[in-house]
Structure formats: structure tokens, C-alpha cells
């Protein structure tokens, strides 16, 4: 077991190195003349040469690669072409807002997805199962950016129930002292027991949260359903049933436990997708997070910023994959 975990962490590091290598190739090989882009279109050849020296682009590739890794280890992602600010600092400012909706969506996926999967499995091939199956495939087929617009149309324009976007309403930002501890408003307002801000922040997170949660909800529901169906067919369940144990008890006490592994794995993996999906919807909800940062970087072709976000997201993704594998390894039935 320990040996497996150790081995898995080592491969995780190797994969991460691979990711970094690919981003290096993308950052240094694909863009033509990064130094010229750095100084802008009106620069003289001398200025471009100076910039090349400053950015270390005049050195041979292997040296550049070594420097690149050294910088990354120091947490240095370079500077944005657009703002000329260190990307690491900019990311740190945008990450909490994104983390907030990702976590919110994750919780929704657990609260809705797992029960949906359980009921679907219990009612296999009945109406509810078909509806839930359709829903789970539907939710992974929906373009997130369209769902965002649709929800705004219904809940803001037609019903007037929820705000169009932003993290707080204007009044709250003017009349209240908004705390900033973790950068996640829901958490910060709870820590400082500021319930007016909590309520306002909660109202604002509902629409983006639901939008982002649809994908993992569908995935988790399907996984729970199929895992549960498989477990319910096992011999040990049949023998428990033969003792006359009630169906409810069989489900909750004996079957469900053994579906948690695959469900947890899917949940962890879907977090990576959720993170990337925020890139599509944050601008729609004027949510000041990573997605908004990416969207601006994309329209201004600010490639160091895009690569910075890529390294961050890919690192998260690799770590999540690692966690998912370790969750599987925790299953005592699996011998490693």
C-alpha cells in the first residue's frame, strides 16, 4: 500500500514534468517572436534585442528550459503581456472567486447527484430511471455558456428572482465592510458572522453554481447508478437478502458503502472539468475569477497569462487524478 502510494506520487511528478514540458514547448516554440510581442508593435530592432536578453530568449533552448523550470519552482509564471504584472500575483487575486463556485458546484453534485443515482438504480427501467438517465446524459450535453444565459433569462428577466451577475449587490459593497480572509465570500462572511453579506453572496452564487454543477451532477448520478446496480447483483447482497433483511437496510447499510469508491473518483475527476467550465461562464455572470481572466487573456492573445492559467489548471488536474487513484487504492478489496 505505502509502496503503491509512493509509486503513484512519483508518476504524478513525472506527469507534471511532462505537462510543464508541453507548456514550455507551446510557450517558446509555437509563438513567433515572443520578444517582439512583449515590447509591442512599434518597437525598434534594438528594443526587441534588449527584450530578448531580458526574457532570456537569447540563450540556447536547454538553458531556457532549465530556467523555465527553476522559475516555476519559485512560483514565478512570468509577466502578463497585457498588464506587465507578475502572473502569479494576478492568479492569486482571481483564484478564490473561482474556487468558491467550483466548491459550491461540487457540493450540489454530491447533494443532488448521489441521491438521483440511488433512486435511479432502485427504480431500474421504470419511469424515474429513464427520466434520470435522460437528465444525466442531457446535463453533460448542455453547453454551459448557454445554460448560463438561459438561467439569466428565466430567473432575472422573466421572474426577477435572482441577480444577473456579480458576487455582491452594489448596496452591500457600499454599506457593509466586506471581509477578505480567504477571498471566498461565503466562507469569509460566515467566519465574521456577517449574515447580511452571506445572504447576498449566496443569492449571487446560485445561478453560476447551478450552471457549473450540471455537468458533475449528471456524471455522479450515472456513476452511482451503475456502481449500485453492479453491487446489488453481487452474491453477498443475495445472501444478506436471503436472511430476510429489508431492502432499505440492504441498500443503505450494505450496498451503498461499496459504491463510494467509484463515485468519489468521478467526483474528483469532474472537478477538473468544472474548473475549465468556469472559463466559459464567468464572463456571463461578471464573476471576477480565473475564467474571466482567461477570457480577457484570450481576446488580447496574452499568451503568457494563458499558459500561466494552463499550468495552474493542469497541475490541479494532475493532483485531482492522483487523489482519485489514491481513493481507489483505499478500497480494501483491491490488492496492490
Amino acid at each position, binding site marked *: 500500500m505505502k509502496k503503491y502510494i509512493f509509486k503513484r506520487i512519483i508518476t504524478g511528478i513525472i506527469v507534471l514534468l511532462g505537462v510543464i514540458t*508541453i507548456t514550455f514547448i507551446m510557450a517558446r516554440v509555437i509563438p513567433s517572436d515572443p520578444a517582439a510581442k512583449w515590447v509591442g508593435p512599434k518597437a525598434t530592432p534594438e528594443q526587441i534585442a534588449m527584450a530578448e536578453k531580458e526574457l532570456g530568449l537569447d540563450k540556447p533552448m536547454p538553458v531556457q528550459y532549465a530556467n523555465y523550470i527553476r522559475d516555476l519552482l519559485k512560483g514565478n509564471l512570468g509577466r502578463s503581456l497585457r498588464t506587465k504584472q507578475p502572473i502569479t500575483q494576478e492568479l492569486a487575486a482571481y483564484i478564490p472567486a473561482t474556487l468558491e463556485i467550483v466548491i459550491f458546484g461540487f457540493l450540489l453534485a454530491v447533494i443532488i447527484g448521489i441521491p438521483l443515482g440511488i433512486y435511479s438504480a432502485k427504480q431500474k427501467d421504470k419511469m424515474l430511471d429513464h427520466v434520470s438517465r435522460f437528465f444525466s446524459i442531457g446535463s453533460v450535453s448542455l453547453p454551459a455558456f448557454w445554460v448560463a444565459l438561459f438561467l439569466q433569462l428565466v430567473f432575472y428577466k422573466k421572474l426577477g428572482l435572482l441577480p444577473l451577475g456579480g458576487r455582491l449587490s452594489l448596496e452591500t459593497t457600499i454599506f457593509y465592510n466586506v471581509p477578505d480572509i480567504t477571498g471566498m465570500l461565503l466562507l469569509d462572511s460566515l467566519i465574521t458572522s456577517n449574515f447580511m453579506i452571506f445572504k447576498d453572496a449566496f443569492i449571487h452564487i446560485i445561478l453560476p453554481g447551478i450552471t457549473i454543477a450540471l455537468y458533475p451532477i449528471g456524471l455522479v448520478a450515472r456513476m452511482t447508478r451503475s456502481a449500485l446496480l453492479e453491487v446489488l447483483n453481487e452474491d453477498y447482497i443475495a445472501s444478506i437478502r436471503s436472511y430476510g433483511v429489508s431492502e432499505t437496510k440492504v441498500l443503505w447499510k450494505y450496498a451503498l458503502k461499496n459504491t463510494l469508491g467509484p463515485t468519489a473518483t468521478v467526483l474528483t475527476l469532474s472537478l477538473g*472539468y468544472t474548473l*475549465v467550465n468556469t472559463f*466559459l461562464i464567468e464572463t456571463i455572470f461578471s464573476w471576477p475569477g480565473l475564467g474571466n481572466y482567461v477570457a480577457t487573456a484570450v481576446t488580447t492573445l496574452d499568451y503568457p497569462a494563458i499558459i500561466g492559467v494552463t499550468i495552474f489548471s493542469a497541475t490541479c488536474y494532475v493532483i485531482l487524478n492522483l487523489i482519485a487513484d489514491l481513493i481507489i487504492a483505499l478500497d480494501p478489496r483491491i490488492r496492490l
Partner: protein
Amino acid sequence: MNYSVIKETIKPKIKVFKESIYLLRRNKLTAIALYLILAIVLIAILSPYIIPYPEHISDEANIQNKFMPPSGKHFFGTDELGRDIFSRVLYGTRVSISTGILAVGLAVLIGIPLGAIAGFRGGVIDEVIMRITDMFLSFPPLLLAIVLVSLLGPSLNNAIIAIAVSWWPWYTRLVRGQAISLKERKFIQAAQTIGTPDYKIILKHIIPNTISPVIVQASMDMGGVILTIASLSFLGLGAQPPTPEWGLMISISRKYFPDVWWYSIFPGLAIFVTVLAFNLLGDGVREILDPKTRKK
């Protein structure tokens, strides 16, 4: 070859086919998805001839008609240039289906040979190819596509390339697994015994025998790929105006949202229906092929 031998090899195939048709009949949702896809493909092929306003595919403007709500004349209303959104959405089917096929096709073209070589040769070559595959798989596909297009420059062609680059590793994995099991089969060993060169075995025996699972996988991937194309276009990284691409249309429509709601809603509905049809089919096919569910 003896005729009865041929008959025997064909027989199980017919049986599987018949069974699949039976399962398809029983599984209504999958059958509906299949009909839907046939309709979508038909629309994609025929769209230039059946849309009510073929001239509205370009950026020709009829400003006096702009932002007309849905009506009998314009089923989905009109956009900021007074163009018929219904015509543009129907034509968008052609754009999405063709780019989807190109992107998946390209990914398959990269994935198959690499997987076949890795699986058949094994050893160091296998190690190297599979580790590279792992590296690419450690990016969320949409993210990799976003970075690549923003570096290559935004255009539909670059979006196709970027999607292929982020999708090929799945096919490599699939084909490699097939190739490894094929390698142990008698006919491959026989070919090796009579001294057939490796490249010939890979081209003539390994690859043709991996095609059908690849086609199944590719059809299941179409939904995700079409969604990715729409997402890239929505970010401004895919199709460029005046191409009637669904994601791009929604992206432009945001300027006029929510007052001109029909401009955003109908193209999105088209994406949803198309992707859903492919995903439902993929799900059904998986169920039909899965021996566990097949028995019951």
C-alpha cells in the same frame, strides 16, 4: 478456402448484428437518438438547398429587419444584421457536423498508427509513445484546445487542429490495447513466421482489425467534440464571423442579451439537441456492447 469455413466466420457476425438490432429496438431512447442523428446529418447535407434565406449565410445586411422576434416569416427571429436566424442555425448544422468529423478524423489519423505501433512493437517504443500520451491526457481537453488555438491564432481550422491534438491520445490507448491482444492471435503469428515485415503486419493486419472499435469510439466522441468546437467559438477562438456557427452566434448575441433572447436561445438549443443525440447514441451503443447488460 473451404466454403463452410467462411460461413462459420460470418455467422456469429450476423447473429451479433441481429441481436444489436433487437436491442436497439428495445432501447427506445437509443433508437430515437439514431433517427435524430440521421435527421441532423441530412440537414447538414441539404442545408444550402432547404433553408428559407440562403443569402443570409454571409454578412449581407438588411438592417431594417433587425431583431425581429420569432414569427411565421422568421421562425427563430432575426439577428443584428436582420438575417434569418432559422436559416443560420440550420446551416450551422453543416458547419458543426463537418468540423466535428474533421476533428475526430484527424485525431483518429494520429491516434491509430501510434497505438498500433506501440501495442505491436512493445518495449521502449511503447513506453515512449504511452508516456507522451499520458502527458497529453493530463490536460483537460478543452483547456489544451484553448491554449493551442490562442497560440496558433483563432480560426476554425486551428480549432480543428487543436481539438485533434487534445483528443488523439484516447484513440492511441484504445488501438494499443487492441493491438496487444491481436499480437497473440494465430494469423499475426503466422504472418510473422513467413517473414512479413512489421510495417506490413501493422498496416494490413493490425490496423484493419482495430477499425470497428475506433469507429464506435469516434461516434461516441462526436458529441463532446461538437460541444468543444462551440465552446471555442464562443470564446472567440473558433469560427469567425460571418460563419453561421452556433457557439459564435451565441457569443455575438450576448451584446443584445436578454432583450433579444431568441438570438441566444435557438443556436444553443441546436447545440444541445445535436450533442444530446450523439451522447444518447454513444450511451446506448455502450450498453449494447457491454456483455453485462447484454445478458439481461
